[in-house]
């Protein structure tokens, strides 16, 4: 009984966060602001479902399932990278170097400053 309540609560929380993430995608102004909603809320949304799934298999099916942990791991690895790709594409298409804050170093931002690519200067 208690397990059922915990599992349902996790599912509902996950659903709410998933919904808020999608709503944020719709509501927030601008590409960069829109990136924030799905990268954060979706992790909680998916994480909640996965925790519920683990708890369900452990309590009702009597076996431990580690697939959910792997999905969480892959999600945590891929979410920032996808986000970075979108941000970089956005900078290429919509931003000018003048609109970004100064780097505070001699080189410019990597997206615009091709000459000073550290990988190339090091000779790799």
């Amino acid at each position, binding site marked *: 009984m208690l397990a059922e309540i915990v599992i349902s609560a996790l599912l509902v929380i996950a659903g709410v966060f998933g919904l808020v993430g999608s709503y944020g995608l719709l509501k927030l102004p601008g590409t960069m602001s829109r990136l924030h909603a799905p990268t*954060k809320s979706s992790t909680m949304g998916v994480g909640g479902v996965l925790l519920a799934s683990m708890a369900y298999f452990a309590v009702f099916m009597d076996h431990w399932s580690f697939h959910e942990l792997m999905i969480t791991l892959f999600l945590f690895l891929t979410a920032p990278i996808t986000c970075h790709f979108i941000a970089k594409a956005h900078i290429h298409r919509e931003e000018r170097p003048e609109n970004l804050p100064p780097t505070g170093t001699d080189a410019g931002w990597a997206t615009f400053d091709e000459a000073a690519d550290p990988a190339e200067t090091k000779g790799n």
Partner: protein
Amino acid sequence: MMRKIFPHPYLTLTLVLVWLALMNSISLGGAVFGLIMGITIPLMTAAYWPDRPRINSLPKVVAYFFLVLWDIVVANFTVARIVLFMPKAKLQPAWVTIPLDLRTPEAITLLAGTITMTPGTVSADLSADGRAILVHCLHAPDSAGVVTEIKSRYEARLKEIFE
């Protein structure tokens, strides 16, 4: 010799554990096959990852993992509150430059990932010399505060782990 077979021992260990978890059972066959992959994959990718990251303290890695996990939960609530209750006009998105003290590529990658997963910030670009990171804040009335928080909360810990 050992270094030739295991260019990245932690990667080998992680691959074996991930393989066992994907199989969802602990069996000898699974462990052996996991070990085969754990040895071949680092060997095949060693050319693209020549340096071996030095990890100074495993307990600090675990502590950092749980700190970030907790911050991700907090980040979800923060962003959900901003999305639901903050009027669009009051939102102050901002670009922030964070000067980096970290030099290890692995540490900078981890820092960028952490910034993206935690409250209201997304890392967007790196300066061409790798000494500053460009961060977009969803709502930052005080951008200097964001810089000090990221530097003291995450960068200092990563520096202890990697450098």
